Structure formats: structure tokens, C-alpha cells
């Protein structure tokens, strides 16, 4: 028996032993494992969407507010990369509208959310999250990047900014789960 043949045989024995060890009580576990394998076989890091909005990103120097040309903006959800022009603007991007299943039971979710990273040599990387996209609508957003100074910047790490949820959406969200006995500040009164 060759080494490979022996290894295959050992694997088979191990599989049989595992199957014997968990014949019925761990059936759910075996099924999940199979599902995971199936999912990993068709794993694609790009998040797909059948719906799109139009996104344009502006990159500026966070201290001078001057536009940054030649910065590279990555749309994390699909890995696509875009360069900024002299005005600090990317071209119009056909960006996916992704609605989180976490919110499926809430108010009809009012916006999808995307994450962007902007890179430019000599500047701190800037991660910009929570960019709101809606089907067929235009969205503009601005990313700030900070220049790395020779003095003072001893620990250089990415900068993160999370775009806040819209206040109208937050009001809806809180009201959706409020019990009658949980008035808090109370329902909004005019």
C-alpha cells in the first residue's frame, strides 16, 4: 500500500467511525456540515445583487478639505476598484443595493448599506461604512483621508467612519418594537 493509499484508507475509516459515533443524535450536525460544504463549494466573496443604485464618491484631504486625485476607492461588497480624478471624484458607480436580512421583520428596510475603502500613498487608509443605497437612486458620499506626517504620526492605522442611520428610520425602528407599557419619552406628539 502506498502512502497515499494508506492515507485514503485511514480517512475512510475515520469517516466510518464518525458516522458510527453519531448515527442519529447528531443528524442535524451532519446535515449542517453538508450544507456548509455545499456553500463553500460555490463560495464567491463578491456579494451579488439584482438591484443597483448610482454612487459617486469624493475623496478629500481631511485637514485641508482639498480634493484628492488618484486615490483608489474599493467597493468592499464586490471588490471593484475606482480611481478619483482631479476633482477627487470617482466615476458614477453602479453599486449594489443590499438589504440586510437582519432587518427583514422590521419596518421595510429603508436603505441598503455599503462599505468603501480609500487608499492613497502618503495618507492613512480610510474605511467608510454604512453608505446608503436605494434602487435606481443616486447617492453621493465623501471620504476623508489624513496625510501621514513625519512627526507626530508614530502609529499609523486606518481611519474608520460609519455613516449614521437616518433619524426617521431610527424612530420607525424603535416604535416597531415598543410595547404599550414602554412609553419611554412617549410616542412622538406634535
Amino acid at each position: 500500500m502506498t502512502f497515499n493509499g494508506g492515507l485514503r484508507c485511514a480517512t475512510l475509516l475515520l469517516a466510518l467511525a464518525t458516522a458510527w459515533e453519531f448515527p442519529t443524535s447528531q443528524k442535524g450536525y451532519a446535515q449542517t456540515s453538508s450544507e456548509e460544504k455545499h456553500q463553500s463549494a460555490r463560495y464567491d466573496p463578491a456579494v451579488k445583487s439584482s438591484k443597483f443604485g448610482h454612487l459617486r464618491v469624493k475623496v478629500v484631504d481631511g485637514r485641508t478639505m482639498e480634493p484628492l486625485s488618484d486615490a483608489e476607492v474599493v467597493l468592499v461588497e464586490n471588490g471593484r476598484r475606482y480611481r478619483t480624478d482631479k476633482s477627487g471624484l470617482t466615476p458614477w458607480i453602479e453599486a449594489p443595493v443590499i438589504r440586510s436580512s437582519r432587518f427583514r421583520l422590521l419596518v421595510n428596510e429603508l436603505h441598503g448599506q455599503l462599505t468603501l475603502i480609500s487608499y492613497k500613498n502618503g495618507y492613512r487608509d480610510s474605511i467608510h461604512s454604512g453608505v446608503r443605497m436605494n434602487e435606481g437612486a443616486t447617492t453621493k458620499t465623501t471620504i476623508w483621508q489624513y496625510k501621514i506626517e513625519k512627526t507626530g504620526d508614530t502609529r499609523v492605522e486606518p481611519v474608520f467612519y460609519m455613516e449614521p442611520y437616518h433619524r426617521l428610520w431610527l424612530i420607525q425602528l424603535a416604535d416597531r418594537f415598543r410595547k404599550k407599557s414602554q412609553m419611554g419619552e412617549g410616542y412622538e406628539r406634535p
Partner: protein
Amino acid sequence: MAAAMELAVLPRQVEAQTNNLNNTGFPSYIRVAIRESNPWGEPDTRGAIIYVKTVNFDQYCRDVIPNEWFPTWRPAALEAGAIAVKMFGWYHHLHPVTVSGFTFDVDNTVNFQLYRAQSNQDTTDQAYYQTRKLAYVNPNLVITELPYRAGYQNSPNWQYRNAQKMSQWGSQYLAELGRTPYEILNFYYSGKVLTTIPKVGGL
């Protein structure tokens, strides 16, 4: 006692009467107090004022509207909102306050209107410039505050009409029924007129 009350009230009346469209220029700037953020990064309505920022008035309105109204809403709702945001800002520009040694017109939180620099969007910009030359004022052209609140979805929000405040969800509801921006404003704020602002252009 009566005289004291009259004194307390009189200056405000005189001041209000002086601020009308004929003798008050359209603001070119507004002073925005920037409040300290809470630990999770949101400006705190009761946070300390860090500094006062002078902002171009048009830019201020454009950076408020998408944070107060959904940019995806109907144009009529956005235009009614744009007029309310502008009149609110204009009124407070004429009535600055001093807190903790800082004099300002508005702050960047829902104490006044939610302002976020560079957050303007195309649809709300269009609504703003479409209505830039319009004012919604008292019949004697006095500039007043046009308050608004969120209200409730899928309803005209009659209770807000009774309180003379515009419901934002109500503005979208009425826009979906085909109401114009003027009709929406007229529904919530009674006894006012829509007029043009002298020497101010739009799109």
C-alpha cells in the same frame, strides 16, 4: 405687574415685526454650533459646544435636508421640506442665542435641525434650488419658524396640522396623493402665504 409683562413681551413683538421679507436680506451665512459627540460618535444634543462654524446658508440647507427628509421621497415632499428647512434656518439666523459664551444661530443636532457637513444629495439639492426663491411667511411677510416633526407613516397626521407643525411622514403621504409642495405646506401651517423672496434666484 401688567406693565412689567408688557415690557417683557413688547421687545419680542417689535423684533418680530421688523424681520419681514421687505427689510431683511436673504442670509448669506449661518452660525452653526458644533456640539461634542457622545462616546459612540453622534453629536450629543446636550453635549458641550466645541466651536461655532460659519457656514454658507445655501450649503447649510443642502446639508440639512437629506438628514431630515429621506432623499428618495417624492419631489413634492422634498420641496415642502426644503422650504421648511430654509425658513427654520432663516428665522434662527435672525434670532441668535448665546450659550456658554458661544453666540450662534443653530446647532448641529435635532435641537434645531440635523446638520452634517458634505452630506448633500442630488435629489434634495434639486428640491432646494427649485424652491430657493420661495418663502412661506405670515401674510404681513414676517419671517417665522416652520417647525416639523417625524410623525407617522401612511397618514396625513392631522394632529400635527392642529399643532401647526409639519409631519415629515405626512408630507410624503400627501405627495404620494399628488399634492403640490404648496398644498402640503398649506395643510400643516394655516394663515401663511407662499411668496417670492426679493433678489433671490433659484435654479
